């Protein structure tokens, strides 16, 4: 499936319009602002922004969401460095060296290092995505519906095994997501299913209500219930003179660290479910091991900031590899991107590059534009974003709740949409409170909408006889590997828990 050059150029030209560039820049700015505000994060902003994209052309809509996704990773570092409070979970490790640097009066240097390494890591992973997407799609297209169904099952097993502390709880959360995704119409004859007489549900439960309810309202409800709305560190002193600027020599001195971390982030990002927080941790550890001065780590070194930010930002581009080649979203942000594409009538999957090659290359171009915007807007606005980080949650939370309500209403849900928003807000809180992963739930909800089609075809091909599955060794391999992974993690967790209990008893 060679992608014709004219398709690539047409895709690039489609993306480079004033309106699209403006939307991507707006997305990046919004993403950095949201990332800079502790308590909010990129996926939450994307969930709130999805209704606004209904009225946009697909390229502009996806470009706007990609801008938010990329901007939020840069923004998360701002309060981590200035206030010792990560704006997003993946910036947690950034506090280790970022805040000590800021305390030494080098906040400007630390912010610039975080910003530049973030853009570098992001750009690296995007290049890998651009190069790898088409060849991987060729491989993916060799698979039929049985294998596609098996891959979706495998992806959920990987997510369950790697996200959260109990894979079986992950599977239960995924099953909830799949069940809710089956609400709507049966695909063959469009007969209503599980709609309880509400015509509003015949197109399925709106992604906006589920996403904003579970991800945004659920998180706000938890923050309010737990009273953690004002946990901020104190602001670091401003930097002046040479400490306020990062020199080119300093940037080049950590190029190996940035490359290593970007590679780690890209590899981790390509696997569904492993978040950028883990990439940041591994990137930081690898940099410390490889460093000639490991004793400086944790006390304020730009190398530590570069290692963390390059790794966590490299995840965002790589997360789109499974989405664009297999139709499997790698994280919540990718799941919302997938939802937005589906709303615009575009189904991500192995045939996407073949059928919508021009659009895919427009998306790639938007990603490149977003990186450029990240570089420019981040550079110009770092001080402003530092001030934003100080905005109290008392201004943010009520406004965000109202934005969710308005979004649920205008996205076509009407009164039912509002009620669903409230119900899923409570459901999101309960999922968190009972230690079920909201990430797996949302990804399963989005995946569930596309899983039915290959699964139904697979049932027809195998005549609903599990023995006939043996004619599809690749599918059997994926199913068994997924199940084995779950069993392995369950056993390992149990052994670790037993060891921990023994240690605790011994201490008593």
């Amino acid at each position, binding site marked *: 499936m060679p992608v014709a050059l004219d398709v690539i150029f047409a895709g690039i030209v489609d993306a480079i319009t004033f309106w699209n560039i403006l939307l991507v820049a707006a997305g990046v700015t919004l993403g950095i602002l949201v990332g800079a505000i502790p308590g909010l994060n990129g996926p939450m902003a994307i969930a709130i922004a999805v209704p606004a994209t209904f009225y946009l052309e697909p390229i502009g809509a996806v470009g706007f969401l990609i801008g938010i996704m990329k901007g939020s990773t840069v923004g998360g570092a701002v309060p981590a460095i200035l206030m010792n409070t990560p704006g997003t979970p993946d910036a947690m490790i950034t506090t280790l060296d970022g805040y000590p640097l800021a305390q030494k009066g080098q906040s400007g240097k630390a912010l610039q290092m975080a910003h530049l390494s973030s853009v570098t890591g992001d750009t690296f992973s995007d290049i890998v995505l651009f190069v790898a997407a088409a060849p991987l799609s060729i491989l993916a297209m060799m698979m039929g519906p049985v294998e596609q169904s098996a891959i979706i099952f495998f992806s959920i097993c990987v997510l369950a095994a790697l996200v959260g502390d109990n894979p*079986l709880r992950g599977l*239960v959360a995924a099953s909830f997501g799949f069940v809710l995704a089956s609400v709507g119409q049966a695909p063959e004859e469009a007969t209503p299913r599980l709609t309880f007489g509400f015509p509003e549900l015949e197109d399925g439960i709106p992604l906006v209500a589920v996403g904003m309810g579970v991800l945004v309202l659920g998180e706000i409800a938890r923050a309010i219930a737990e009273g953690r709305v004002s946990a901020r560190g104190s602001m670091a002193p401003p930097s002046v003179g040479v400490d306020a600027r990062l020199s080119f020599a300093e940037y080049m001195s950590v190029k190996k660290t940035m490359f290593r971390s970007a590679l780690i982030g890209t590899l981790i990002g390509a696997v569904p479910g492993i978040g950028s927080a883990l990439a940041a941790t591994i990137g930081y550890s690898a940099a410390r091991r490889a460093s000639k001065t490991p004793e400086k780590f944790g006390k304020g070194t730009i190398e530590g900031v570069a290692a963390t930010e390059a790794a966590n930002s490299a995840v965002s581009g790589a997360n789109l590899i499974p989405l664009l080649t297999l139709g499997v979203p790698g994280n919540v942000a990718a799941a919302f991107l997938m939802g937005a594409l589906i709303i615009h009538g575009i189904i991500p999957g192995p045939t996407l590059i073949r059928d919508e090659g021009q659009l895919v290359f427009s998306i790639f171009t938007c990603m490149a534009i977003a990186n450029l915007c990240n570089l420019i807007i981040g550079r110009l606005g770092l001080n402003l974003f530092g001030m934003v980080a100080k905005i109290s949650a008392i201004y943010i*939370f009520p406004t965000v709740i109202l934005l969710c309500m308005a979004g649920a*209403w205008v996205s076509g849900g009407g009164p039912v949409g509002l009620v669903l928003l409230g119900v899923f807000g409570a459901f999101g809180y309960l999922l968190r409170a009972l230690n079920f992963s909201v990430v797996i739930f949302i990804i399963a909800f989005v995946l569930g909408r596309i899983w039915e089609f290959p699964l139904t075809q697979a049932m027809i091909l195998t005549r609903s006889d599990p023995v006939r599955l043996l004619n599809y060794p690749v599918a059997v391999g994926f199913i068994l590997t997924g199940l084995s992974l779950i069993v392995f993690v369950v056993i390992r967790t149990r052994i670790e828990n037993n060891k921990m*209990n023994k240690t605790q008893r011994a201490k008593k």
Partner: protein
Amino acid sequence: MWGDTTSLDGLLMKRTSNILTGLLAAALGGVLIFWVTPAQTVPAIFATVPSGFYPNFTSGMLILSGLALAISGLVAKQDELTGRPASHTVIRFSVSFILLVTAMFAAPIVGFVPAGVGICLITLLLMRENRWALIAVISIAAPLLVWAVFEILLGRPLP
């Protein structure tokens, strides 16, 4: 002695929690397969695969994963109760939940801005904000701002 935790899961020992939530999930799956899906699915006449196949398949997954979770709890050793949620957490959550859903119901009837004022007021009080002037300003400004953005800027009518 229990330490304070904010997770509701802390009400139960991990083992008991796994058993209960697993059984509840499996029971829900059973209810879906045997009662809800048959009653709420219009059968397709010419379809090669029945309309209820996918809900039943996913409900089956819910039963299997729920049972697996419950069994993993049953075979696990009794663990220590490490914490329980403070009573104010449960009360705050219950109040937040009831108010959120009430406000969602009320908005189409009383209008977005009045419902929004109520939501802001209650949210700020739940956040233990006690500066009344600030509460008043935010409660009025935030709904008006969001209303103006959607109604005037984007041209999308709100209730």
